[in-house]
């Protein structure tokens, strides 16, 4: 079976401006900027088979989010090769984006002052989801995540757990076979974490999705992942 994610010798180096403190430092940074290379991801190679749930572990700053962003096509790698869901992410365009979802635990796509359903409808239009499919999928996701009466409340009145659940709904309406989840349980209480975990297991069983997730909660890893990738902050 061909891999659904194939990353080979992936590296990302950021150029970071070095700025000394104070007015003199500010002037010098403006006139004669100095840069420092930060190797966020170095020479990372891995494959993921369809249907796997893989946990990506590493301390803060180990390049997990950077890797996910490269896999999702938000960042270009400095060097290396990636194929995800049959596409090179940054040239795949809309057909690629229909095949993936990227959920970032510390960012949200829901519109703050509107009920989540408005965001769902927006995504329905963006992804061109037929009305029948939309209703069916929304009903399924709402049941699985026990969202019930949440859909009509403005997002700002939702709890963090309810917001995360709605983020998942918004990201899964187009039924992507490949999910990138960056800390989907960040900051949630134990019950909400557990609900998200049970949902991911159930969702994968129903639809066979492949999941690459990052988390600092070991319960996520032991409950979900058949395999772990670990990256380090210190180089050799």
């Amino acid at each position, binding site marked *: 079976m061909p891999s659904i994610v194939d990353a080979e010798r992936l590296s990302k180096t950021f150029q970071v401006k070095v700025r000394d403190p104070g007015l003199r430092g500010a002037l010098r940074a403006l006139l004669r900027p100095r840069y420092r290379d930060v190797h966020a991801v*170095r*020479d*990372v190679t891995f494959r993921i088979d369809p249907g796997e749930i893989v946990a990506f572990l590493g301390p803060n700053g180990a390049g997990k989010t950077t890797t996910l962003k490269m896999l999702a096509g938000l960042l270009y790698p400095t060097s290396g090769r990636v194929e995800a869901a049959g596409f090179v992410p940054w040239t795949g365009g809309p057909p690629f984006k229909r095949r993936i979802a990227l959920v970032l635990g510390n960012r949200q796509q829901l519109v703050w002052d509107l009920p989540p359903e408005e965001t769902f409808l927006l995504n329905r239009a963006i992804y061109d989801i037929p009305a029948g499919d939309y209703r069916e999928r929304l009903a399924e996701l709402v049941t699985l995540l026990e969202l019930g009466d949440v859909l009509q409340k403005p997002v700002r009145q939702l709890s963090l757990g309810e917001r995360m659940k709605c983020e998942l709904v918004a990201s899964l309406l187009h039924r992507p076979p490949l999910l990138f989840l960056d800390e989907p349980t960040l900051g949630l209480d134990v019950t909400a974490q557990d609900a998200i975990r049970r949902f991911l297991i159930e969702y994968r069983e129903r639809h066979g999705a492949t999941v690459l997730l990052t988390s600092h909660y*070991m319960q996520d890893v032991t409950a979900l*992942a*058949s395999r772990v990738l*670990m990256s380090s902050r210190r180089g050799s």
Partner: protein
Amino acid sequence: MINRGRLLYDGALEALVARIARTKRIELVLGGGGGDGNRVTAEALAAFGEVKSFHFPNAVLEVRREDAPATSARLLAALPVADLSIEDPPIEEVIRLAFARGVEEDE
């Protein structure tokens, strides 16, 4: 230069635990010993492995991974044991160790 973002490990979680954690924890609940006189002592337990904690009747020993079955058998034979379980170290501890020490490749 900041060096980071290298891949340390790729594989099953259980295999990582086996590679990083060289020890197992034997958790005991001691039984018997009505009077203080014939209670199991910390010294008696120390003969079987490193005593991580001991509050009668609960005790936790740490032993080398490969010794865990044999040591458990000796414990059961020698002491009044009401309950015994062999555990891996907590997964958080294993991950912390893996980040701190790195993961050695198989030879």
